[in-house]
């Protein structure tokens, strides 16, 4: 059956993109060739088709030649299809009467030294595009309503900021955190560079705000189980892990009015089980029923059922509050949201795998995060920095930068820069000199990357305070068996002399890497990953918060290493991006829906199981069994269309005739030189 009734009248517009395209192939040849193509009534070229004059050319040509199909040969449709569709529309055509030939990203840029090859390819690409344009038809985008709510995954500083912004903009926001308290990595830090203000002091107010904001519904100790739906209408299943402790509302729901956990801690005192506290990097104990630290939000205890012996002492201690339920099990809950923000954070690499630095072999080799806890006033040592081996105060402390970062070797293989290690190591150096009179920090570095606002000035300050900088990557560290001191070996590459320095303690600025669970999460939300495993943004420069899945946004280190200011900035960006569809109230979906051609459909129903969204069903229509599409559910992947034995399924904008026409255009028309 014919795709279009009227005679095709196509206009072809070829973009130079400055010299990006014109520099590698002959625009003139392509233009002349385009003019010869069947159905093409006008062909034109311009320096920058995406510019206003460029778009005006299209708009005018549509009117002048009363075109019914537009082909632009330029960059990638993933970049400028929306631009030219708008132009097509302004010219008075349906915006789906537009087709793009990607002669830049997939031609001129990848065949820069093959003028003829590139030109021939461009001709073919234009011919293929024209072939499709000839068969394009009017389509109406489908607009769907957007839930007036959002979900933020991850309760670190990024997730908290995003949630506060969304909530502040009047959007119901669900903040999901896997651990018992929000706060994330930042709550483990002592001070923050370059201002040196206390991390807890600036974070705790935020945590409280999150806790009491009417628009924020906080789910701690909760993980995402399943994600369904699309932008505007996500249905997300949450697994509330068995916490064993009821908050006042939960308690009330069970009829213990006035009961529930008030954070008094009586339970923890009587608990006989002792475990290492992961918040303190295992350097302090916690009970089987515990909170990380006094400022946790919410202030509600949690039972670690892996180690709980169910002795029941805590239940007695809790008494009338009846907050403890030793038989608690995981529960599930569904929330419907319009958009989601992923702020799932990062992990440190297992730095012990770099055997030459002796972490976990030598007592006095620690990581940066362990240092944060040791120097923190609320930490396991009350802020007294001591050597794990003998509790002595270290007077010479070595800092190993790029510990695993910028490292191509197998096993570690973190070729990227972790971006905040330089600065926090400078901060550590300052803290040592501040807290321990006469102590000298030695910073072993390849480059000091102090790129942020007031960062270089901070570097200046630390150097002025007396920190010693040695430009050499540490080759290996050996322990003196008797004193437990550490010999650090490297080269002072500026002196050109080998270095063998005895240190009381060494701090490794371990590289960061994506969380292990990131893989599962990104697949649930349909987000791609970069080659080093970080979640992939829609565009590295122009859309750093968005993803290729509409309605899913990224914030913080999960998208790539960044420090607190950048994380917060990106979180606010993501929040604003995520609020746009919600405030607009509706989003337009590209109308690439499957349609059943009922005359042909044999009602075999094989397509029904093919659809991953259950959008297809068999129905009785005037005596025949035929398939019917629920457009709201159809996302336009075309899996059914690719499978239908009878070819009874039309995939709008990607119909079989259109695609076959493209194939024929390439292989049959001309082609051979």
């Amino acid at each position: 059956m014919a795709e279009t009734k009227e005679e095709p009248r196509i206009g072809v517009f070829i973009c130079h993109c400055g010299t990006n395209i014109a520099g590698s192939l002959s625009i003139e040849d392509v233009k002349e060739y385009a003019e010869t193509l069947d159905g093409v009534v006008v062909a034109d070229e311009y320096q920058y088709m995406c510019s206003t004059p460029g778009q005006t050319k299209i708009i005018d040509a549509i009117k002048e030649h009363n075109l019914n199909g537009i082909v632009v040969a330029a960059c990638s449709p993933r970049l400028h299809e929306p631009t030219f569709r708008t132009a097509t529309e302004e010219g008075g055509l349906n915006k789906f009467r537009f087709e793009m030939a990607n002669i830049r990203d997939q031609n001129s840029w990848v065949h820069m030294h093959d003028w003829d090859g590139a030109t021939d390819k461009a001709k073919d690409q234009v011919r293929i595009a024209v072939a499709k344009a000839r068969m394009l038809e009017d389509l109406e985008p489908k607009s769907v309503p957007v839930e007036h709510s959002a979900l933020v995954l991850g309760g670190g500083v990024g997730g908290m900021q995003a949630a506060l912004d969304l909530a502040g903009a009047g959007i119901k926001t669900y903040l999901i955190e896997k651990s018992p308290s929000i706060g994330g990595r930042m709550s483990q830090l002592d001070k923050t560079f370059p201002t040196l203000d206390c991390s807890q002091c600036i974070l705790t107010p935020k945590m409280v705000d999150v806790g009491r904001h009417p628009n924020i519904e906080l789910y701690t100790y909760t993980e995402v189980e399943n994600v369904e739906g699309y932008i505007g209408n996500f249905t997300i299943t949450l697994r509330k892990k068995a916490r064993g402790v009821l908050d006042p509302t939960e308690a009330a729901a069970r009829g213990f009015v006035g009961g529930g956990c008030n954070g008094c801690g009586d339970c923890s005192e009587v608990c006989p089980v002792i475990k290492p506290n992961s918040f303190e990097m295992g350097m302090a104990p916690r009970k089987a029923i515990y909170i990380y630290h006094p400022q946790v939000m919410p202030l509600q205890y949690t039972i670690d059922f892996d180690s709980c012996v169910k002795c029941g002492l805590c239940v007695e201690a809790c008494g009338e509050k009846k907050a403890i339920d030793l038989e608690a099990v995981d529960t599930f809950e569904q929330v419907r949201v319009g958009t989601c923000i992923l702020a799932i954070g990062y992990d440190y690499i297992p730095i012990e795998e770099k055997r030459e630095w002796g972490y976990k072999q030598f007592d006095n080799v620690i990581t940066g995060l362990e240092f944060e806890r040791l120097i923190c006033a609320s930490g396991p040592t009350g802020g007294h920095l001591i050597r794990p081996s003998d509790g002595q105060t270290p007077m010479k402390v070595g800092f190993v930068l790029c510990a695993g970062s910028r490292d191509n070797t197998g096993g570690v293989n973190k070729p990227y820069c972790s971006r905040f290690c330089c600065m926090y190591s400078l901060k550590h150096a300052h803290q040592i000199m501040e807290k321990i009179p006469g102590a000298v920090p030695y910073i072993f570095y390849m480059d000091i990357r102090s790129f942020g606002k007031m960062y270089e000035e901070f570097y200046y300050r630390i150097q002025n305070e007396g920190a010693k900088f040695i430009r050499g990557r540490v080759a290996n560290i050996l322990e003196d068996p008797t004193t437990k001191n550490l010999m650090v070996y490297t080269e002072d590459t500026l002196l050109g002399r080998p270095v063998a320095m005895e240190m009381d303690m060494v701090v490794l600025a371990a590289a960061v890497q994506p969380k292990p669970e990131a893989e599962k999460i990104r697949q649930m939300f349909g987000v791609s990953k970069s080659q080093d495993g970080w979640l992939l943004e829609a565009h590295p420069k122009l859309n750093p918060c968005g993803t290729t899945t509409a309605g899913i946004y990224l914030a913080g280190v999960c998208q790539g290493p960044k420090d607190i200011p950048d994380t917060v900035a990106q979180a606010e960006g993501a929040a604003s991006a995520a609020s746009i569809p919600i405030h607009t109230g509706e989003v337009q979906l590209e109308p690439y829906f499957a349609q059943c051609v009922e005359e042909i459909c044999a009602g075999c129903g094989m397509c029904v199981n093919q659809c991953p969204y259950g959008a297809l069903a068999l129905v009785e229509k005037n005596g025949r069994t035929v398939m019917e599409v629920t457009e709201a559910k159809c996302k336009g992947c075309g899996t059914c269309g690719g499978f239908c034995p009878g070819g009874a399924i039309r995939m709008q904008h990607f119909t079989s005739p259109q695609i076959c026409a493209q194939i024929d255009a390439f292989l049959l028309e001309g082609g051979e030189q």
Partner: protein
Amino acid sequence: MTDENWKPKIIAIICNWCSYAGADLAGGARIQYPPDVRAIRVMCTGRVDPLFIMKAFQDGADGVLVSGCHFGDCHYLEGNYKCAKRMFLVKTLLKNIGLDDKRLRMTFVSASEGAKWGMVMEDVVKTVTELGPSPLKKYER
């Protein structure tokens, strides 16, 4: 009949979310590869009807490449699985009609694998060039 300046005609049907993005990335990174492949964009490799591939070979294509997301990464959950399954079928079909099934190739290139796209292009062109012109070419025209 392979003369010196014979160049293979290869058609690639690639998905919008991974492989097409990967190919764009290769462009951004200026990764150079032979210009013998023409790409047709579909939203998902699940859309690839075996008919398209047979059509291409019937039209005399020397090679066909189908490229989608890695398993588990499909933008539409499982389109690439479905497509991969069909490709096995098509390959047997090709063997039956006496075509070397190395002329049909399915690859998985993610949006961040520009370099890999370059390698795939190199490799596909190499393979098909070694196989020579499609025997079906003689019959048409």
